[in-house]
């Protein structure tokens, strides 16, 4: 199809018509069909596979954030190819409930210049609603379409678990986030996957008697599941998070890789001694073999000075749950089994779409992790 065949007005007409049909469709069963769009989602899909994934998560996204999705399949190629189609999608109506509907427009392109794609996407956005750009796959910042669009977006979502060169791209992500400074806000689905781990870790210290130990951590060991392409980004973000919450600062020249283990040292304020005193926290991040698991597999925080204490979160052998254990010298270990989400892509996106502004906790963690990644990526 030639590029002239894409007529924005025709797409809008098509969508309007679909709404009318929905409203009078016998399956609507007398239930009102509600068009209550809450945002625009632009997906920059590097290939058909990602476009399919984006279509596959659309119903789940619509259920929580009815939206207009514009999927751009942005394939490289010598000859320019462009076509577009639209559909409205309604989430399954529970008996007696109103249907919620969203809209999808797919623009399939090959070798099209970013400027041309952007000129198609922009008029398709519903006015006065937030715009989110989701750019899965490696090297999001190197994509001309992303470079072209991000300034117009309220949020840019990337996924560090899909990075090809994880350390280098993590450093880029951190640099981008800092420069953007909230415009757009940046989300990383790799960080979203850490939510349960952060929650379980934080919960230890909601218990008053455990809180003092948090300020005396000396040693951290993080194990992450690695296949043939180890991606330590999640573990680095986790360290970045702890360090930024607890005001630890990395010892810049003491960051290194020994075999497969990443070794990091951070300064932490010493507790109970003179104000200038500092102590070191040693962090080891290592890959382990865990079939069927992505991301973190186990983490342990230890305090050895003064009273010994250890806090462990680990996946159970079937990886369906997490076991948390707090061991304080001289007391019964306190253990429990907890659910740990292995969230689907749609859950991760939904959770980021819920945020309205810059996630400052993430920004601080990313800043620190990005610094570490930069050191580690040096030849």
């Amino acid at each position, binding site marked *: 199809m030639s590029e002239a065949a894409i007529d924005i007005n025709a797409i809008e007409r098509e969508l309007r018509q679909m709404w009318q049909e929905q409203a009078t469709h016998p399956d609507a069963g007398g239930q*009102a069909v*509600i068009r*209550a769009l809450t945002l625009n989602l632009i997906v920059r899909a590097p290939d058909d596979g990602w476009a399919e994934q984006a279509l596959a998560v659309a119903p*789940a996204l619509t*259920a*929580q954030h*009815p939206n207009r999705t514009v999927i751009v399949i942005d394939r490289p190629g010598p000859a320019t190819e462009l076509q577009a189609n639209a559909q409205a999608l309604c*989430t399954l109506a*529970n008996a*007696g*409930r*109103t*249907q*919620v509907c969203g809209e999808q427009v797919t623009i399939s392109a090959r070798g099209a210049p970013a400027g041309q794609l952007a000129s198609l996407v922009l008029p398709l956005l519903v006015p006065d609603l937030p715009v989110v750009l989701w750019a899965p796959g490696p090297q999001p910042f190197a994509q001309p379409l992303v470079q072209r669009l991000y300034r117009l977006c309220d949020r840019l979502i990337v996924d560090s678990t899909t990075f090809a060169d994880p350390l280098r791209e993590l450093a880029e992500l951190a640099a981008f986030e800092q420069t953007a400074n909230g415009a757009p806000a940046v989300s990383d689905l790799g960080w979203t996957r850490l*939510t*349960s781990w*952060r*929650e*379980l*870790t*934080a*919960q*230890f*210290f*909601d*218990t*008053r*008697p455990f*809180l003092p130990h*948090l300020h005396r951590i000396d040693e951290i060991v993080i194990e992450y599941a690695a296949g043939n392409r180890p991606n330590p980004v999640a573990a680095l973000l986790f360290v970045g998070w*702890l360090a930024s*919450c*607890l005001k630890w600062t990395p010892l810049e020249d003491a960051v290194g890789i020994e075999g497969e283990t990443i070794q990091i040292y951070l300064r932490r304020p010493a507790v109970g001694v003179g104000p200038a005193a500092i102590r070191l926290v040693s962090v080891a991040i290592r890959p382990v073999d865990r079939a069927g698991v992505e991301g973190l597999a186990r983490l342990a925080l230890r305090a050895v000075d003064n009273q010994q204490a250890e806090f462990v979160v680990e996946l*159970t052998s079937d990886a*369906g*749950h997490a076991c*948390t*254990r*707090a061991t304080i010298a001289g*007391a*019964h270990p*306190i*253990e*429990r*089994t*907890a*659910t740990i989400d292995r969230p689907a892509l749609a859950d991760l996106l939904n*959770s980021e779409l819920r945020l309205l502004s810059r*996630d*400052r*906790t*993430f920004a601080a963690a990313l800043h620190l992790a990005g610094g570490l990644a930069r050191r580690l990526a040096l030849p």
Partner: protein
Amino acid sequence: MATPVLDNPLRAGLRIGRTPEPCTMVIFGASGDLTSRKLVPALYNLARERRLPGGFSVVGFARRDWSDDYFRDLLREAVNANSRSGPVDPELWASFAQGIQYHRGSFDEADAYTSLAERLAAIDAERGTGGNRVFYLATPPDAYPTIVAQLGAHGLAHSNGWTRIIIEKPFGHDLASAQALNAEVLSVFREDQVYRIDHYLGKETVQNILIFRFANGIFEPIWNRSHIDHVQITVAETIGVEDRGGYYDTSGALRDMIQNHLMQLLCLVAMEPPSLYDADAVRDEKVKVLRAVRPLSVNDTVRGQYGPGSANGLPVRGYREEKGVSPASQTETYVALKLFIDNWRWAGVPFYLRSGKRLPRRVSEIAIQFKAAPTMIFADTPLNDLDPNVLAIKIQPDEGISLKFSSKTPGQPQIRPVTMDFRYGASFGVTSPEAYERLLLDCMLGDGTLFTRRDEVETSWALLTPILQAWAEGPPQPFPNYEAGSWGPAAADEFIARDGRSWRRL
């Protein structure tokens, strides 16, 4: 004294709230219906959503001769049957059940409390619960004073951690009994340790009333006597008295529903904005509403009792034929009443409240009816043909908010009412937690906002007790006066028609 919020530096930016400190919940009446149907499923779901800390423990207190294992199995079955998340996840349950114990004893038996104290101390040592306790009174109401006194006598009202007590409804059956119960409870516990449950406040849509009013700028300016004609609050049930006949016959709709649930809804729609969202600031404003209610007269009430009829197409018996109910019972199963709030915001605006059993639909809603347009400029439509604007806050079952306004009919010169609907379930694809989940968690976190304070309970009883007395002293009513499955007695329709208004058709 509320627990100071712990300064956990890892909490900032986490997407779920704080978890309570490890504690032990002692459930009195643990072999009863409430425990199996609501409390333990709620606790399990909290654990499942990682809202409970490691070490959290439950001790069930009742008379039956049960073992820990038997009790755990029974609760597991109860969760399987009643939890909104379906059957238990075996691994999670195993970990949760480790913290459950059964304590056999009678409420009036001193030794049972001595051994309870020992048991709690042992749990503190083994499971790190640090002396933190919640006592939950899920017992017949006449046991409340006994248990409270025994807890006091055995030094269980205070510990080296925090101690709180949750008291179920009914809280008293008139002003004097509510005051007496408060006096007994407060001779042992401080008010900030006492959490009186009204499970309506745990419903998300009820909490949403405050969000709707005070997080939106456009409604508050018209939320007053200049713009509102009247307010209707309806809580309709389709069920009869089930197997609670014996209890219900001593209570009735005014005590069972109006005094607590409908009065709470009234407070939430009518209150002034609190200066902050904090337990006492919110409850202060609610009490001010109750204090401003003009004393009620019996002439502002209508009573009803259902006779035989049908429900869901099946014949059902009348109230007087229910198990445990006196065949000559004068207990009301339906109440409608009108009240006025004498303050600057509401002077002259009637609030109509109604609640009944065996009505055609289960529905709870608050409807704000606005005044009509002052004059009609569309010649073809007389003013009295126009439906007024109504903002309906639906609490159950289809939670949401709808606004009715007039619109032009396509192609014709006519004006028709249309409804703009916001449905909670459709806009947010997640299921809401059960009321008890929210309330149990809030109590463990030390947040009393959604619980009723002493003065709230007493002020509400003070308003309604004269009606109860007048009814008791008045002539017997020609009960039954409405058919099961109808919208209540004809007298209720006449009652509101006298004011030139009508009940909303629901």
